[in-house]
C-alpha cells in the first residue's frame, strides 16, 4: 500500500539549520532538552511582531523559574534584511528571545515545516519598501523536538502562561483542548 495520509500535530515542525543572532550555527538539535517557544516574523514588522514578542515576554516573565526550561526563539521570514546583527539589535527590546536567520532556502524550509504563511507585499506606506504579512501563531516544541502545542494570536499573556504552565509542570496532562462533555 502506498500513501499513508495522516496529519497528526506531530507533522508540524522538524529539522532545521539556521544561524543565531550572535552568528553561531544552530539546529533543532541545539535545543534538545528544552521546550522551545517559536515565533516567526521580521524585524521591520510594525505591529504583529512587537505585540507578540511583548506578550510572550510577559507570559514568560510570569512563569518564574519554569521559564528557565523554555528557549524562546524568533525566526525571521525576511532573511534578506534580517541579518544576525539586525536581529540582535532588534531583540534587545525582547531579551528573552534568540533571533534565528539563514539563507532563503533555509528559511523557506523551516517555514514549510511549520506551515507558516509569509508573503512579501509592497508597503503602501513607504514607497519602494515592502512588508511581509505572516502567520502569527506561536509554536511550542517539547524537549524531544516534537510539536507540543500552538497558541493563537488572540490569546492573552495570561492565557499563554496558563497553558505553558499546564504543559510544563509535572504530573499535569497536556490538555490544550480538554473535552467539554
Amino acid at each position, binding site marked *: *500500500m502506498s500513501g499513508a495520509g495522516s*496529519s497528526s500535530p506531530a507533522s508540524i515542525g522538524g529539522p532545521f539549520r539556521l544561524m543565531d543572532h550572535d552568528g553561531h550555527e544552530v539546529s533543532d538539535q541545539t535545543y534538545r532538552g528544552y521546550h522551545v517557544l517559536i515565533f516567526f516574523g521580521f524585524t521591520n514588522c510594525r505591529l504583529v511582531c512587537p505585540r507578540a514578542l511583548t506578550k510572550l515576554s510577559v507570559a514568560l516573565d510570569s512563569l518564574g523559574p519554569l521559564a528557565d526550561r523554555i528557549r524562546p526563539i524568533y525566526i525571521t521570514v525576511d532573511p534578506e534584511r534580517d541579518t544576525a546583527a539586525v536581529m540582535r539589535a532588534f531583540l534587545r527590546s525582547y531579551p528573552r528571545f534568540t533571533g534565528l536567520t539563514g539563507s532563503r532556502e533555509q528559511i523557506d524550509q523551516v517555514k514549510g515545516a511549520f*506551515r507558516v504563511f509569509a508573503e512579501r507585499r509592497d508597503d503602501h506606506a513607504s514607497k519602494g519598501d515592502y512588508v511581509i504579512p505572516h*502567520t502569527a501563531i506561536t509554536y511550542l516544541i517539547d524537549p524531544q523536538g516534537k510539536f507540543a502545542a500552538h497558541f493563537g494570536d*488572540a490569546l492573552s499573556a495570561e492565557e499563554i502562561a496558563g497553558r505553558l504552565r499546564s504543559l510544563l509542570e509535572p504530573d499535569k496532562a497536556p490538555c490544550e*483542548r480538554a473535552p467539554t*462533555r
Partner: protein
Amino acid sequence: MVTSGMLRVALPLLRSDLEGIVYLYPVKCLRQDGGDGVRFGNARSREMSMSSRYAFESLDKLQIGHIRHFDNLSRQPPNQWKLMKGKGYGQEDFGGFRFQLAYMAYALALTHRHRLPAAPGVFKPVFERLIEKMLLPEVWMYWRDVSRGGSIFNAHLAANYREEWNPVGRDNIMYSAYVQSMALLYGYLFNDARYAQPAALTFRFWSYFWGGEAKCFEYDQNSLNDHIYWQMVESGYLGVACEPNCVFQICNQPAILGFRMHDLINGGSIAEEVTRSYEQAWKDFGRIGDNGHYHIMMAQDTKAVRQNIGKAPWVDAWTGALLNMWNRDFVHAHYPRQIRDFLKPGVDGALSINVPARPEVMGQRIVTDDCDFGWITAWVSEMGDAETLRGLLAHADRYMAPAWLDGGLYYPRNDLVENAEGVRTLVEPMSGNVLLGYARLNIPDGLWHLYNEPWEPAHFEEPAIVAVGSDVDISRAIFDPENNRLNFAVERRRDVSGDGIVRIARALARGPWSLACDGAEFARGSGTNVQIAGAVQVEIDGADVVLHCPERFAHSCVMAFEPGEQDSK
C-alpha cells in the same frame, strides 16, 4: 416588508413569519476585545427560545417526504446513484455526488437540531450511510485528474502540478471540508466518537484493471480537522483551494462549520481563530464586488479576485447561506439588495429567478449543474425570508413536477431550462433531491443557530428516540424538561415495509412513566414492569423502551415521567 416593483422582499431585521410573532434580530454588539460580534447574553437566550420553538411544531407531509427521500438515496447499494447523476462529467461540478451527500447531511443536521431534537434515531443511520458513500472512490476519484490543473483558471501553472491520489492531501477543500464537517457534525449531534477512531475516515482505492498498488489514506475526524486547519494557517487564512490555485469563499465555509463542531466536541477555539483571521485576511480584497455581489474566488498566484460580474445566482446564494452561520450581520445586511437582482415574479405569488446566460469559455459551452434555483431557495430559507421562500416553493411545486417515490419527495431532473411559456423548469439533481428539501426543512438562521447555540450537555441525557423502523415516520420529538415528558408523533406507513418499531432510550432511569397517545393511556411502567392498556405493544429491552406500533398507527404521544420517583438515576 420592503416593496420593490412587483416583488416583496422580507426585510431581514423584522420578522413576522411565525404565527404573528414579531421579533427583531440580529443583535449586533461589540465584543469585549473590541471586535464586532454577537453577544451571548439575554439576546441569545431570547433567540434560543425562538429557534427551539420549531421543535414543538410537527413536520408536515412534505418535510417528512424530503427526509424520507434522503433516507432512500442513502440506502442505495454502493455505486448505485439512481436519480443523482447530473449533466456534467466526472463529478467535477457543483452537481457532484459529494455536494448532494453533504447537503443532505446538513439538512438532516438542521432538522435534528431545530425540529426533531429528541429523535436522533431518525437521522443517525442516514448520516452514517451518507458518510459511507462520501468515502467511495466514485465520489472523490475526480481529484486524481483535477489535481493536475490545466483548467482555464490555472492553465499557466499546469506544469507545476502533479497527479494526486489522496483526495484530502492538498487543495480540494470542495471535498475534504465536507468529509470533515459531516464527521464532526455526526460526532456533535449524536455524541458519538465513531469517526474519531483511528482510520475511521479512510480513502481507499484499488482496481483489478489498472493503477498498480492500492492507495490508502487514513484519517479520523480530528486528524482531518487538524490537517485542514494547518492548510488554512499556511494559506494566511485566505482559505484552502478547491481546484489548484482557486480559493473559493463558498468552499471554505464548510470547513469552518467543521472547526466549530470540533471545538464543541473537544474544546478549544479553532473556529473563532479561523473566522477572525479569515475576516482580517480578506479585508485587503473585500468579499463583495462593486455590484454588491459576493466575490467568487481568488487566484492564489496573483491574488486577483474574481468578481461575480455576471451576477450568477449560485454564487451569492451558496455563499450567503453558509457564511450566515458565523457572519450573520454581514450576510443579512447585503441580502435585500442581492436578492432583488435574482427574483422574477410569477403568477399567484410564485417566484422564479433570473439567470444570466453563461458565456462560452475557450469557445466551449460549459456543461455543469449550477443549481441556481436550489441555492437561491436554500439561501432564502436561511435568511428567514418566509414570503420569498413560499413563492419559490410554490414555483417549484407548480412547474418542477414534484414526485413521490417510496414515500420520498423530490423534484426530478429536468434539463429543459424553460417551458414553452418561458417559465423556468430546469431542475438539477442537487436542487431536486437536496436543496429544495433543505430549504423546506431549515428554519430562519438555521445554520447560525446550529453554530452558535450548542446543546447543553443535559440534552444527551434526556429520553430520546434512538431507533425507528424503516416504515415509521416521526413528525415531532422533543423532550420537555420542565414537565419531564417526551412529546413525539408517530405514523407507521403502509407504503413502506418495516417492523414499526420506535426505540426510546434514557427513559427508564427517570422513574415510573406513562405513555399516552392522543390522550388515551397506552402503557404504564416502572423499572422492568410494563402494563399495557392499548394497541401498542410495549416492551423493555435492556435499558430501552421499545414500542411496536401496529399497522396504521398514527398518533401524537406523550411519555410522561413522575417527578420525585426516580428509582435509579
